[in-house]
């Protein structure tokens, strides 16, 4: 490979970014190598493979990957590619299997990826095939609070370092209960959108009162949910925080109310409040009193392509993204609460979601504008809140003064440059962990 091309696609002083990154095939190809080939990627959840020899078919970028739990209960992320010709060895979305047989010539692999059987080993190969070196290609795997991550990069830092202080915030949703979480899903659909626009949108609370006004209005009328007006959004005490490459939003919640999610309505609110209060002692033990009572994670994105909590935005070329929408539920929550969250999540987010239906044409036209001869020469303007974010005495990361800001987006595109311009992981800065992780919760739950 020649020298790494240096990208300069954002001017941090003005927030102007080069639209070419949303549609150029060459940029996309580099992203697959430099970002998706390096970063820790969310690929699934432990609850999708609860038993030995369970598997769940997923992707790392465009590479098909089998998440397995082997006979000893260990997790593996295996490239779904027979080492002989390259056929896939799994064609199902999920299941339970001790072995995966390639349907082309019958090479058979264990659920740990080892090549176990080759037809004609003696008769055709003269026993000269080096089976131990021909197992399915494996990625490094680790988990955070049940969420499975994998990376192809041998030189990547640990998952703990990669998440860094972002975990201080993420814990407030994903690491609350001793019993952990269970994933339902995914619902899958294909949008004509560049994957980065979805990530950008995770910190975009500015669009809500315009894009989603119709859904907000009817949900106020039918469900008693609060209106999401510009005034509400501008006055919101919530904040953006960019922490170790990850774009998060959060709410300071000194009023001891439950995190506001789809599924909360006038009718169901008492259920959520009762659950919040009943579980608070456990959450305080796990996260410490400050995080348990004061910090509520909002919409967020784990770099590069984790969006809307636990959803995968799988790149499918510069102009397409396949969305995999899951719902994560606390395992030990009452069934009525789980029901409310599931119904709220699938009715609002997802292909048929009341809110999400109205997002896609905006995003696809942002992507399409970057293909236009003239449009692509005119930069995007991400100047909102320039100079109004920085370090905070209580909260780790770069914290915006206001909720409506483009600070996270600017920093996301700078993070994108850091990955794209790096020769190796040694060139990619990782912030040291400085947050105080009070409580008993750990990386693994």
């Amino acid at each position, binding site marked *: 490979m020649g020298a790494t091309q240096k990208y300069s696609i954002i001017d941090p002083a003005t927030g102007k970014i080069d639209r070419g990154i949303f549609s150029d095939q060459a940029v996309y190809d580099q992203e697959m190598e430099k970002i998706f080939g390096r970063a820790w990627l969310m690929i699934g959840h432990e609850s999708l493979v609860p038993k030995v020899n369970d598997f769940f078919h997923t992707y790392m970028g465009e590479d098909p990957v089998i998440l397995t739990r082997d006979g000893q209960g260990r997790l593996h992320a295996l490239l779904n590619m027979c080492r002989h010709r390259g056929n896939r060895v799994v064609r199902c979305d999920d*299941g339970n299997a001790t072995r995966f047989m390639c349907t082309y010539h019958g090479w058979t692999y264990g659920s740990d990826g080892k090549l176990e059987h080759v037809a004609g080993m003696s008769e055709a190969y003269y026993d000269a095939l080096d089976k131990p070196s021909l197992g399915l290609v494996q990625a490094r795997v680790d988990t955070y609070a049940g969420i499975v991550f994998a990376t192809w990069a041998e030189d990547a830092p640990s998952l703990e370092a990669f998440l860094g202080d972002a975990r201080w915030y993420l814990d407030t949703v994903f690491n609350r209960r001793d019993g952990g979480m269970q994933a339902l899903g995914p*619902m899958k*659909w294909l949008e004509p959108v560049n994957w980065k626009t979805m990530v950008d949108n995770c910190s975009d609370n500015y669009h809500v009162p315009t894009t989603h006004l*119709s859904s907000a209005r009817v*949900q106020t009328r*039918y469900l008693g949910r609060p209106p999401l007006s510009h005034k509400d959004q501008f006055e919101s005490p919530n904040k953006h925080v960019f922490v170790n490459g990850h774009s998060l939003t959060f709410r300071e919640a000194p009023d001891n109310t439950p995190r506001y999610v789809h599924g909360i309505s006038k009718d169901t609110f008492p259920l959520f409040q009762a659950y919040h209060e009943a579980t608070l002692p456990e959450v305080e033990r796990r996260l410490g009193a400050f995080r348990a009572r004061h910090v509520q994670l909002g919409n967020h994105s784990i770099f590069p392509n984790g969006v809307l909590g636990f959803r995968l935005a799988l790149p499918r070329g510069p102009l397409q993204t396949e969305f995999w929408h899951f719902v994560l539920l606390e395992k030990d929550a009452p069934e009525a609460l789980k029901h409310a969250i599931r119904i709220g999540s699938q009715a609002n987010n997802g292909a*048929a979601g009341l809110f999400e239906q109205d997002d896609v044409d905006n995003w696809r036209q942002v992507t399409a504008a970057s293909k236009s001869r003239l449009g692509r020469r005119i930069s995007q303007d991400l100047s909102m809140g320039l100079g109004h974010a920085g370090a905070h005495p209580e909260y780790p990361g770069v914290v915006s003064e206001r909720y409506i800001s483009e600070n996270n987006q600017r920093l996301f595109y700078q993070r994108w440059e850091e990955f794209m311009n790096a020769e190796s992981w040694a060139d990619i800065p990782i912030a040291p962990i400085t947050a105080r992780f009070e409580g008993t919760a750990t990386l693994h739950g």
Partner: protein
Amino acid sequence: MGKHASAKVTTVTVTPRQALWLELMAFYTHEAWLLDERKFKEWLDLFTDDVLYFMPRRKNVLRREAHREVTPLGDLSLIEDDRRYLEMRVARLETGMAWGEDPPSRTRHLIGNLVAEPLSKGEVKAKTAFLVYRSHLETDHQLLAGSREDVLRRVNGAWKIAKRTVLLDANVLLDKNLSIFL
């Protein structure tokens, strides 16, 4: 008096099952036109107050595990609406700000292959296949194929849908969103 005056009047006898089939085919044809002519409030009148409108996910599994192909109620689904959510979907379109459908999609619902089977308590199970074409904005278009399995019930003499299960024939939905009704 024209030449028709001498035409013989023919009476065709149909069995109760055939009569039901004809009645329901007319019902589904009527429904298709309501949807394609965007008369969504009238369309809502075709559902009972306790309706469940359900669209499960469709998975790739081996033949021997066919029972796992369609996700059950209680799992994450594409749609699991009660009457209130269906009404919200329609009310949303009337705000003039439901941008995903404003300007609206052009749809064509073709409904066929009806099989109807009486259940107990006067309810009927009706299975149909559909091909739905959607055209949106300039060049966006999609052909959605699948089946509907309905439980219908007579309310004040008219058939109403008490439960609808829409089974899409897609694993990864190829459309940008599912903002039309099936």
